[in-house]
């Protein structure tokens, strides 16, 4: 009388959750409501059955039935509202195991334990469980990221969570948690555009909280896909933490859809920098000095770099600058050639300053700059980055020979850090730098991928490296690397979810 409806409801609930993970339209709300109703019905059925057993003095059967029928239904709620806020990492782990999160429940449970972990003992407990699970998969990477977040290292957490899509092992419940953390992090930084992009590309299956934050981001950025007021309130009703999100919803609704406070677009050459502080300066040299000053004190952006480079390139070739310098050189009795020497020296000093700050902000030289500063900056950034990349890839590949068996997560973190540096360099240096950097990266990366597959049996990690090398080979058009990449990526990857072919 109880078992069959319960099993049907459980199937229905899981099917609704699976369908919801693939949707970001009004269907999401419909599937969520269906999953919620199924959940409530399961709870009523399970609790009634337990009470019935208890009332007929079968308490010894009621207790296991409580664990089997009721606990899985309320486990997720307990985790989110009791165990995680209370820092009960062991209870959170076991509750997550019983919440039926799909195949390989320990992966999700590990992440939940990392989410709840506070203090050294909890971190050590979670780390030990992570190390016991081999080979490396998305659950272990996400758990490491959440531990990093718990100790305040948001940058590492962000980097590791963003690396998850590279791993073929895909636990939807783990990806949901990762997406929610990134959405909350973006909302805290008011990085609404970043959140909008994640939503547009459907990078993560959305939890109700993620779905709400994505709607808010769309309203704040004025995206054309922004939800209406009614839909936003519906998302708010579905999501947890109503008190914390109410003000955000009210703030977003104050902006009419499609007219949000999106940042002013900047053209390809960065010509419309909102911080053009010296537009009123009459001649190029004062304009360049003022731009340089503004560049030094304000956060560096591609537009401000482009504007400063252009201002200097204009000022240093301008006739009024040369005329002023020639006159002062004459009055000061400066040696012959002082004007050219001074222009050269100023160009060098300016290039040094701009290159230092552009390197720190991981920016490339602005396109289409032809003056002395623009040329110098392009050359400096390209050469410096290429040398740094080659050294980093060599150091990475040398890890094979240092006779130390590093934990798999350390190997992944090393690769992710290298990848971040590579992407920053090639984004800044363009296709030319990419072509120059790829052969060395390919040589070292292929060796590491083979070593991780054959010696360390870290299949998902090795496959991620091969996949990245193949993608890069396709971009730069390296035929030999493309052929090898296709062969490597065609291998079926053993994971805890079975052998996966990509």
């Amino acid at each position, binding site marked *: 009388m109880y078992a069959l409806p319960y099993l049907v409801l459980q199937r229905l609930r899981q099917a609704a959750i699976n369908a919801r993970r693939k949707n970001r339209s009004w269907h999401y709300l419909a599937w969520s409501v269906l999953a919620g109703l199924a959940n409530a019905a399961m709870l009523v059925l399970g609790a009634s059955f337990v009470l019935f057993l208890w009332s007929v003095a079968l308490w010894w059967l009621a207790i296991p039935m409580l664990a089997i029928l009721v606990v899985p239904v309320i486990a997720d709620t307990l985790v989110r509202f009791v165990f995680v806020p209370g820092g009960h990492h062991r209870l959170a782990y076991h509750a997550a195991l019983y919440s039926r999160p799909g195949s390989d429940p320990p992966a999700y449970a590990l992440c939940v334990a990392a989410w709840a972990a506070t203090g050294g003992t909890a971190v050590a407990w979670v780390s030990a469980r992570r190390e016991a699970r081999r080979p490396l998969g998305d659950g272990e990477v996400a758990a490491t990221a959440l531990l990093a*977040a718990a100790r305040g290292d948001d940058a590492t957490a962000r980097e590791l969570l963003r690396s998850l899509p590279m791993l073929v092992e895909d636990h939807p419940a783990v990806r949901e948690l990762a997406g929610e953390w990134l959405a909350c*992090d973006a909302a805290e930084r008011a990085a609404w555009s970043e959140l909008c992009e994640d939503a547009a590309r459907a990078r993560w299956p959305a939890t109700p909280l993620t779905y709400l934050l994505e709607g808010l981001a769309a309203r704040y950025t004025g995206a054309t896909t922004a939800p209406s007021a009614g839909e936003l309130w519906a998302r708010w009703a579905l999501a947890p933490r109503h008190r914390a999100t109410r003000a955000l919803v009210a703030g977003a609704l104050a902006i009419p859809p499609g007219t949000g406070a999106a940042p002013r677009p900047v053209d390809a050459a960065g010509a419309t920098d909102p911080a053009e502080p010296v537009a009123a300066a009459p001649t190029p040299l004062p304009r360049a000095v003022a731009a340089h000053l503004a560049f030094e004190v304000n956060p560096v952006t591609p537009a401000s770099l482009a504007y400063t480079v252009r201002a200097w390139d204009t000022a240093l070739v301008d006739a009024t600058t040369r005329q002023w310098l020639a006159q002062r050189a004459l009055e000061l009795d*400066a040696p012959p050639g*002082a004007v050219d020497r*001074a222009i050269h020296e100023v160009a060098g000093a300016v290039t040094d300053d701009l290159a230092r700050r552009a390197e720190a902000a991981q920016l490339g030289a602005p396109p289409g700059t032809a003056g002395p500063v623009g040329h110098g900056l392009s050359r400096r950034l390209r050469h410096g980055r290429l040398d740094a990349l080659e050294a980093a890839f060599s150091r990475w590949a040398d890890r094979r020979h240092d006779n130390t068996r590093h934990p798999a997560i350390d190997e992944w973190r090393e690769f992710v850090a290298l990848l971040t540096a590579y992407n920053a360099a090639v984004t800044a240096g363009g296709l030319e730098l990419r072509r120059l950097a790829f052969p060395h990266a390919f040589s070292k990366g292929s060796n590491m991928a083979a070593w991780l597959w054959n010696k360390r049996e870290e299949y998902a990690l090795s496959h991620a490296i091969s996949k990245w090398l193949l993608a890069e080979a396709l971009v730069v058009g390296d035929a030999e690397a493309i052929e090898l990449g296709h062969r490597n990526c065609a291998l079926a990857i053993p994971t805890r979810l079975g052998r996966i072919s990509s």
Partner: protein
Amino acid sequence: MKLADNPFFVLGVTTSASRIEVEREAQKLLGMLELGFAEARTYMTPLGPRERSAEMVRAAVAALRDPYRRLVAELWAHHAPPSQAEPRAPTPTTPPRAGLRRALGWRP
């Protein structure tokens, strides 16, 4: 940066100051620094106030004695915006919502 340690700002003289005026101002500053005058310990630049030392004053005078080095220093100082009494603050950006992540159930 060629503005924060520019010899003209260190000595507090304009770019039109003569060689004698530069020397006289430097002697005055060195004396004041020797006697520990508080007003001599800082100087104004377009980036805001900076600390001044006797070594900086001597280096600034030496730079302005050389016509070529003075020419380069003038290029920066003559065309710079006016000096600031307060440090230049960066242009304000959208304030992040501190503590929102915690309010939404995530650590820290």
